[in-house]
């Protein structure tokens, strides 16, 4: 008799010892919740700083400036080619820290689970988070789990917050842009968004689409260690490369121009975008960032970045044309025609024909 069958029988006042699916009691503070923490969460995240029997983790942070950020993850499906919500939640927050040049140290994790969701899926997510955290050399030190009624969630939502240390004196800001600065993108664009969309909608393409989900702290640290002094960096998540650069241009009051032919896009992403009427420049990435730095550092930056597997396709895609002006991102297409790229209105929706 399975655990589920046992529980669907006559009502029994005895507590449920274990369950294949998430129950409201898993978030209730009683035995079931304790078992969940003891069996799944703590073993996966076990590390010296972890809060186990206290209400908070206690940390020793290195002296100097720290960076602190938070992000929530609601991706559907939970598991997709190239990653899952857990890996995404670790890499996403690590990357937010990395974009200000911080070395990520500690993460918190908050789970909101939906009643009825498979416990084995939680095991997979937690294991994936641990692997991603180890790879990014960051520790998950505190967390929380809540359960909502069946139908009130989408399986699992994850929030991660992160703390990192800044081991340099740079202030990365779009306001620091100078005419002639170069724009580098760390890899090919559009893979995450198209992979998730094809997994979500069951679209099959000839060439497999896989998310680029990856932590970017190591390549950024390598960039800084090599003496590069980025003006600004931005990960190209929601809204893609175009949105990240438009934000930089507008905030910094600078006119940027990128060369369409230079922006790397895999054949699989290009094909899927052509078919669905989407623009890869606006499709989300989870392991790709853009960096603007002085022109004499471009070659060094590319050499350093390309040593990291997540940035092997790093390439110079454009320049800062002018500063102290109206912020605009210009795009030179393959025919040599320039046009302005602007924020999209709403999400990109696949077209009719």
């Amino acid at each position, binding site marked *: 008799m399975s655990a589920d069958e046992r529980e669907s029988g006559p009502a029994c006042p005895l507590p449920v010892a274990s369950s294949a699916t998430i129950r409201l009691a898993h978030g209730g503070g009683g035995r079931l919740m304790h078992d969940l923490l003891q069996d799944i969460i703590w073993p996966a995240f076990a590390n010296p700083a972890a809060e186990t029997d206290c209400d908070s983790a206690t940390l020793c942070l290195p002296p100097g400036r720290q960076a602190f950020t938070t992000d929530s993850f609601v991706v559907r499906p939970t598991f997709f080619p190239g990653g899952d919500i857990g890996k995404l939640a670790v890499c996403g927050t690590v990357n937010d820290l990395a974009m200000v040049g911080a070395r990520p140290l500690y993460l918190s994790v908050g789970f909101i689970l939906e009643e009825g969701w498979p416990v084995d899926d939680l095991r997979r997510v937690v294991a994936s988070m641990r692997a991603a955290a180890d790879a990014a050399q960051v520790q998950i030190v505190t967390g929380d789990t809540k359960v909502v009624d069946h139908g009130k969630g989408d399986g699992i939502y994850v929030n991660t917050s992160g703390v990192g240390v800044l081991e340099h004196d740079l202030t990365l800001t779009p306001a620091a842009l100078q005419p002639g600065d170069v724009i580098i993108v760390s890899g090919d664009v559009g893979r995450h968004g198209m992979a998730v969309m094809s997994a979500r*909608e069951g*679209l099959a393409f000839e060439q497999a689409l896989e998310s680029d989900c990856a932590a970017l702290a190591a390549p950024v640290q390598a960039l800084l260690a090599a003496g590069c002094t980025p003006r600004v960096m931005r990960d190209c998540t929601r809204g893609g490369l175009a949105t990240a650069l438009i934000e930089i241009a507008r905030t910094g009051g600078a006119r940027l121009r990128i060369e369409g032919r230079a922006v790397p896009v895999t*054949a699989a992403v*290009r*094909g899927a975008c*052509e078919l*669905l*009427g989407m623009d890869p420049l606006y499709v989300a990435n989870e392991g790709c960032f853009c960096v603007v730095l002085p022109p004499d550092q471009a070659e060094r930056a590319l050499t350093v970045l390309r040593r990291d597997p997540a940035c092997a396709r790093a390439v110079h895609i454009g320049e800062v044309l002018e500063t102290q002006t109206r912020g*605009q991102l210009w795009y030179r*297409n*393959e*025919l*040599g*025609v*320039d*046009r*302005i790229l*602007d924020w*999209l*209105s*709403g999400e990109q*929706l*696949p*077209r*009719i*024909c």
Partner: protein
Amino acid sequence: MKYIDEYHDAAAVHKLVAALRATVTQPWTIMEVCGGQTHAIVKYGLDELLPPEITLVHGPGCPVCVTPVEIIDQAITLAQRPEVIFCSFGDMLRVPGSAQDLLAVKAAGGDVRMCYSPLDALTIARDHPDREVVFFAVGFETTAPANAMAVYQAARSGLTNFSILVSHVLVPPAMEAVLSAPHNRVQGFLAAGHVCTVMGIDAYHPLATRYGVPIVVTGFEPVDILDGVFCCVRQLETGRAEVENQYARAVRTEGNPRARQLIADVFEVQPRRWRGMGEIPASGLGLRPAYARFDAATRFALDALPVADSGECISGLILQGLKKPHECPAFATRCTPEHPLGATMVSSEGACAAYYRYRARHAEDASS
């Protein structure tokens, strides 16, 4: 990527532009019929490469743009019904009805689902026998075969909880409406390549002859479009008015006979109202009586009272090639993709949306 790279080739583009410059001797106005072509022209800046004698005007070939408000309102009414799962292509979801759009219905709890094919809606109907599944069957001759197939399969498999809300329109009658309008300025057409892959090119011969206009069946990539313009100008300059097939890699003279047969089996030609253009005779498709039980408008006894378009919106003039988006006083000021006055500002293939996305900030610069 095959079939893409060679049609984006800068050398080929510039060669065609040079050939056009060498050929053109006087002003010509050419309409590209399909919204996909409009989008490509503005996105790649092809009109900026053309000699000044050639003016491209944008045609009525955006299915989202020409769907009348009353049908959007019908869709919204259906989507609000608790027993209905309303399925639609993505870009119909943002089109405003008289009070709201389908995304707002979804946000308020309506079961609105984005589908990539009407056959996905059939699967949903099979999986939810206790619900009514309605697919929003919008589009030109390009989407008609798949919609016909969905109805045909539903009939064959005895599905009783599936229906379609039909708003199908046909390209040749719209071209004729443009040509016969009193202020028509269109002297040649780039016909919509994908429509012709289904329907073939025979329907265009009478139009070319009767109105004395060249009609060039044209593809969607930059080289295709410039080649289509070149073929059209070459005919205009030599006084010819013929049907020419630039898109021969995809379009056969007879089109796709099996798809045509399927359309003819399931649908019949009917008069239809076009947003911004009014009623055009024999310009739409409706379900044949044998398939009437799959017609959502009948099944749910929906009213179809015509709703007037926004007074300020000039999309009707734009869809007939009489005005360009930036000639509208509301363009990019009172009418934006966030607050559209008409559907041409909403659809990804609408002329106003294309101008807004690729040109609005140029206009801002010019005025500042």
